[in-house]
């Protein structure tokens, strides 16, 4: 068995250092070592998207990364969306549109939508629907999530003006 390895990284703007076993997944690292339990595990084989985080600015499945691969990385999780107690426009939009029920898939959708809107600030409905197609929700039927992404895009657009 391999020895533990040092991982130094930044999560939501905060620096961390931990020694971990090589096989520890990044998702388990965030949840169990850093107690950032907002990142959820729905399938652990890269299909459901509940564990989506931002890895150096890109949306990725954290269940398909090893913690040791995050050495030096800049990571953002759902806990990093709200700033100074203010909900991010996406978070508000999810509540406004009833875009969540059980809430388990929600962090993954939020991080997916966050990355998507960064790249496409003014998406069409079809683009928004396509963007979230790699995340599974069993409660909402998706339409409210599409609406929330569109609402947030208007919000971020108007705030930029």
């Amino acid at each position, binding site marked *: *068995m*391999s020895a533990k*390895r040092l991982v130094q990284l930044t999560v939501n703007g905060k620096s961390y250092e931990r020694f971990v*076993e*090589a*096989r520890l*997944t990044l998702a*388990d690292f965030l949840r169990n070592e850093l107690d950032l339990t907002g990142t959820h595990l729905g399938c*652990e*084989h*890269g299909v459901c*998207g509940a564990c*989506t985080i931002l*890895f150096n600015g*890109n*949306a*990725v*499945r954290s*269940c*398909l*990364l*090893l913690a*040791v*691969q995050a050495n030096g990385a800049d990571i953002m999780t759902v806990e990093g969306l709200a700033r100074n107690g203010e909900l991010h426009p996406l978070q508000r939009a999810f509540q406004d549109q009833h875009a969540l029920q059980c809430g388990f898939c929600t962090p993954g959708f939020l991080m*997916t939508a966050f*990355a*998507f809107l960064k790249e496409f600030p003014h998406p069409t409905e079809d683009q928004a629907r*396509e*963007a979230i*197609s*790699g995340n599974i929700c069993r409660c909402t039927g998706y339409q409210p999530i599409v609406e929330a992404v569109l609402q947030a895009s208007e919000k971020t657009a108007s705030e930029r003006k």
Partner: protein
Amino acid sequence: MKPAAFEYFAPATVDETIELLSAHGEDAKILAGGQSLMPLMNLRLARPRVVIDINPVSALDYVRIGPRNELCIGALTRQRSLEQSALVKERNPLLAAAMPLIGHFQIRNRGTIGGSVVHADPAAELPAVTLALGAEFVAKSAAAERVIPAAGFFLEYMTTALRPTELLTEIRLLPLRAGCGWAIEEVARRRGDFAIVGVVALLQVGEAGLCEDARLALFGVSERPVRAERGEQVLLGNGPEPKAFAAAAQAVVDELDPVSDVHASGEYRREAAAFLMKKALHAALARARGERVDER
């Protein structure tokens, strides 16, 4: 669903990687984007004793033009970079068009072209696309570097011609001839899923209005991606007409003995392959004629 223990190396260069491969051989598994390997490891269906993580080998992440005007793609280049690359779109629109069919953008953010072709899932898009394009795969070992043509690269189910001590470093795609039409079509249970069945078509129509070149490949129909040479023969020297396309599609599926699985029967795959092949040939012809074809 947690991986079994393994020894982990994260070399920074190609040479270091090859050294590790020489040392560990069949015990080692290369970890690139991890989008195929990690699920297998989490499920403990893959239990490599040694994992060589090549993500730090940034020298393998590039897209450039080679001396023969070919597109040279570093094995570690992310699928998402290829999707967004202006150079790829310009030089090889088929490759660019195949990208959005692979998983979802979160997958393509990590997934690499090298990882996909080496994993050689018979239902994946990139193996069939590189096969149709006649790609060259550059394999490097401590002893030598060799170029493996696509026709000899995909051997069996999830098995390529790479030796345990070899590292895939580059994929080379010769430029499409001017006026070459192309298309990729698939049926999947959902958007982003591996295809139940898919086809790739390249079509070259000469000045006489006859097919000068045709390259057809299929995925999801066999233990590996397949070229449909009999279908190609049917097209060559004939006019690009619906009748010829139908005959070619028939010839293509006559050669097939597709597998059955939870998503569809072999019979379904034959029927759908014939339909998709006709559709792809029509789309390729339209592109060859410079007509606009709606991409999905």
